[in-house]
């Protein structure tokens, strides 16, 4: 990171390779739109490059810092547009792919079980997409990106206690919507 802050493009490229999939996954969960997710990730790396010297290793890990930038960019973006991006069909592509794999590889009985499982995952994915932004961000960062509550609090700009409360509320909402 220090080398990247000194303008070393090779070091920066290594950072990009290490963290881009995680950032892209988070961006996809935030906006459910491939093009917007790509723009968001590119904006994030641009900001990281331009302000790399502001990174303080004692405050957070690089991954946490990058996710915080991405989250703030997403908020800026949605405020500018003032309209929530529609849950596009592309989000259901993943479960469809999982279904195809299950169809090809499993026996008939196993196939039925996997089909049911894939449908449940797809349904959960859909419910996650329908959560309010903050709740969706908290669930995504904790359960899909693997961040600790402390890191999630840092990324979202909340206290740890507020984050725990937000996460509990998000899980409750997710469970209710899934059971509807």
């Amino acid at each position, binding site marked *: 990171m220090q080398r990247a802050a000194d303008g070393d493009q090779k070091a*920066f490229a290594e950072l990009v*390779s290490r963290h881009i999939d995680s950032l892209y*996954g988070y961006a996809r969960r935030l906006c459910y739109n491939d093009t917007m997710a790509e723009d968001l990730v*590119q904006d994030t790396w641009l900001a990281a490059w331009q302000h790399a010297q502001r990174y303080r290793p004692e405050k957070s890990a690089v991954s946490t810092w990058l996710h915080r930038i991405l989250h703030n960019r997403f908020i800026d973006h949605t405020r500018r547009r003032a309209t929530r991006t529609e849950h596009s069909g592309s989000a259901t592509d993943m479960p469809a792919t999982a279904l195809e794999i299950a169809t090809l590889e499993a026996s008939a009985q196993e196939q039925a079980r996997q089909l049911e499982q894939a449908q449940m995952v797809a349904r959960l994915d859909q419910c*996650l997409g329908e959560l309010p932004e903050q709740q969706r961000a908290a669930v995504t960062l904790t*359960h*899909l990106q693997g961040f600790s509550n402390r890191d999630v609090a840092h990324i979202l700009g909340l206290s740890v206690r507020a984050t725990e409360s937000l996460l509990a509320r998000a*899980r409750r909402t997710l469970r209710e919507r899934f059971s509807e």
Partner: protein
Amino acid sequence: MDDDQMDQLLRQLQAQQPSAPGYLRSRIMANLPEQERPEVAAAVWSKPLWKPAIAACLPLVIGFITGVVSTDVDQQNVSHWYASADPVYADTLGDYEYVED
């Protein structure tokens, strides 16, 4: 759905996290502008320059310190010389015993 079941589904969803498309890396690296850094600070604190800069300044600092010390010693010597030669001048310096007739 209970908590365990939800956690299990979330783990499966995590396993399906999409990877960034390959072209995105190239696009990011191709569009990097110059970093926003103050020019002078960047030049002074960049690794190749700060060591020679300090090395160049060191003789000046040493020269300044030794110069001040030697001037101070000279000044003391001059003061004693004037004190012994000129009672009036010595009086202003405060180290001359003035005796009235």
